[in-house]
């Protein structure tokens, strides 16, 4: 049963040319195209701590290096640390006696690391108050930061001064008056411009005073030395105890300290996570927008492909052997509340020129091609694939269908050659595959052509008379019933329904191919 939920078996080819499972693909209703994480713009909505689910604004997060102030990760194994309580503790004055008081320490449930291991004193409060380690290069980094901030300020002032100087040149008549004839201020208009010139000059002077002074923070430049600190004397004589030496992962988890001994591992502040919204790069509409609350897992907008594109699944894995025809059963599921005509067409990815055969009808689909970007990472597809011929109809999704008597199949005149079974909004079809060579993974591909009914709230009027939006070269030439838009064309904002024919390339991984038929049956 695991194959039913293995999302990587059936993958769709995104409009950018990447293959992604349907769960990783979005559907832009405005462009009527598939989008994936590769071809949308990601926007950071908020930062939050995954442990305490606390929201943190951006400036504070920058100050805290995108880490939570209260939650910690284990420095030894990386799991979340939990706060433990111990009631009894030795009296600080008389170690032999113990007194009753609540003390808290951090403990890892994975590797049993505790804050007592590295002699961090227990805390009397449950949260906060843990001692922080000072980064060894903190002074130097702070002085560097200060220095370069001053440098940046000076550069900014220089730019300002140049700008002001350029402005002064433009106002040269006024400055002329100021330096020369004092009696010329009879003209009130000139005097006003003089005043502004004076003001600007004064401003320049204040800048100039600051800019001319040398930088207040004198930076001691870093000195390179050829001498490297020698190895400790006992490194060749003492045996290495692996349990006391940090691994590379453990060292790099705290880049400021990089402890080499596990006795100097300190708890690490937990990294923040982000909630992000996705936006189509072409039409700039939101494809995914989460709710703002960190504890909520819902979305305000979620245009996932699994709400709009028929879901193709492999019903059961089939044994494959070279030269023997295997019947691969697929299920197609309609996630939309609209009737969906659908057909499987051959997918020929390596033909770069799009070729459209206008005379082909749906009942006898001939070869049709789709353009695929060169950057795509398509696997080698099996060529001898017999797809079910003709068109089939997918019933609309009905949430009540599973409770009632499902006799919906009576209303569809199915060709038994095409449809093997039909249940609510799902149908089963069979694809015949003849593998040609022994491989670890056989891929088949086809073009899923279906009519998608797009309900859009249109703010403007009179646009609904536009014909079906085409996707792919052959979309508007399709014979799959891409008729005129059925939405009403009125002057008020209305829900506009238009039917579009879409072509979605689907690539299915079938599994390993064995050498011969006798071997697979044995």
């Amino acid at each position: 049963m695991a194959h039913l939920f293995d999302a990587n078996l059936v993958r769709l080819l995104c409009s950018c040319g990447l293959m992604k499972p349907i769960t990783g693909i979005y559907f832009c209703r405005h462009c009527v195209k598939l989008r994936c994480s590769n071809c949308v713009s990601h926007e950071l909505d908020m930062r939050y701590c995954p442990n305490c689910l606390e929201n943190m604004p951006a400036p504070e997060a920058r100050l805290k290096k995108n880490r939570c102030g209260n939650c910690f990760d284990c420095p030894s194994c990386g799991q979340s640390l939990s706060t433990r309580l111990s009631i009894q503790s030795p009296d600080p004055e008389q170690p032999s006696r113990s007194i009753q008081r609540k003390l808290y320490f951090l403990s890892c449930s994975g590797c049993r690391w505790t804050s007592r291991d590295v002699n961090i004193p227990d805390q009397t409060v449950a949260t906060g108050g843990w001692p922080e380690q000072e980064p060894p290069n903190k002074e130097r980094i702070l002085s560097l930061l200060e220095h370069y901030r001053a440098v940046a300020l000076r550069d900014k002032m220089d730019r300002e001064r140049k700008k002001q100087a350029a402005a002064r040149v433009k106002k040269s008549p006024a400055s002329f008056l100021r330096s020369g004839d004092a009696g010329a201020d009879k003209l009130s208009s000139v005097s006003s411009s003089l005043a502004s010139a004076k003001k600007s000059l004064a401003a320049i002077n204040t800048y100039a005073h600051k800019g001319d002074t040398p930088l207040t923070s004198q930076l001691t430049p870093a000195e390179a030395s050829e001498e490297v600190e020698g190895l400790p004397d006992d490194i060749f004589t003492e045996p290495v105890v692996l349990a006391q030496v940090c691994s590379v992962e453990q060292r790099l988890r705290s880049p400021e300290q990089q402890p080499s001994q596990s006795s100097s591992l300190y708890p690490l502040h937990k990294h923040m996570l982000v909630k992000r919204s996705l936006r189509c790069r072409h039409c700039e509409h939101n494809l995914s927008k989460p709710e703002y609350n960190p504890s909520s897992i819902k979305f305000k907008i979620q245009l996932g492909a699994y709400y709009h594109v028929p879901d193709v699944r492999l019903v059961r894995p089939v044994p494959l052997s070279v030269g023997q025809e295997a019947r691969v059963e697929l299920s197609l599921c309609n996630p939309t509340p609209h009737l969906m005509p659908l057909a499987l067409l051959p997918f020929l990815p390596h033909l770069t020129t799009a070729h459209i055969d206008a005379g082909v009808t749906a009942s006898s689909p001939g070869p049709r091609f789709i353009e695929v970007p060169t950057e795509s990472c398509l696997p080698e597809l099996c060529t001898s694939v017999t797809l079910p011929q003709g068109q089939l109809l997918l019933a609309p999704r009905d949430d009540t269908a599973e409770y009632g008597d499902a006799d919906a199949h009576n209303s569809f005149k199915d060709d038994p050659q095409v449809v093997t079974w039909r249940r609510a909004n799902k149908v089963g079809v069979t694809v015949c595959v003849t593998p040609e060579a022994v491989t670890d993974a056989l891929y088949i591909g086809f073009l899923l052509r279906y009519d998608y009914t797009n309900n859009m709230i249109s703010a403007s009027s009179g646009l609904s008379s536009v014909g079906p939006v085409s996707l792919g070269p052959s979309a508007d030439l399709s014979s799959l019933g891409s008729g005129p838009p059925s939405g009403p064309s009125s002057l008020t904002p209305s829900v506009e329904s238009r039917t579009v024919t879409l072509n979605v390339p689907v690539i299915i991984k079938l599994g390993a191919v064995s050498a011969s038929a006798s071997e697979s049956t044995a």
Partner: protein
Amino acid sequence: MAKQLDPSVCNVTVAAGATVCLEGDFIGEITIGARTVVHPKARIIAEAGPIIIGEGNLIEEQAQIINRRPEGSDDSIQRTLNIGHNNVFEVDCLVEAESIGDNNVFEAKSRVGRGVTVSRGCVVGSLCTLTCPQVLAENSVVYGSDHLRRHQHERPVVQALQLEFLNKVLPNFHYLVKPKKKSAPAAAVPSS
């Protein structure tokens, strides 16, 4: 009439104060110390010699403690598996160790193979497998999918509260193996 362990298969000696459920699988000569709790579906199999379990141990459901005979070895050689005090054998662990000291924890689904000597205060993490003959140093922890090892400062705490609770609760719902009376060993098995 309370059920009895089959005396032809096993000889379980239980100290007073231990809670040993009768539903467990017991084979061979087994001695269980005071305050030790053995859950209903634990398996203790003393195939290659007696198993002596100390005090205050907690043997949870589906834990297996096996004193297994090496393949192809002489049947006559007896080997005793000594288990110390205050060890915890969590759910579905498999322990075939050479000997076990005190205050060790065998977490859920851990496996300790033959030839491993577990000293004191050790923790074998969940799903960790130790098969090569070795001696686990005191207070060592084996954890994670990569079987990383570390040395901990303190030994694991004794599960005193849990033992106390189980001591109270288990007799309400399960038949227990009763401590043998010294005076009448024959009276316990009159029918056989």
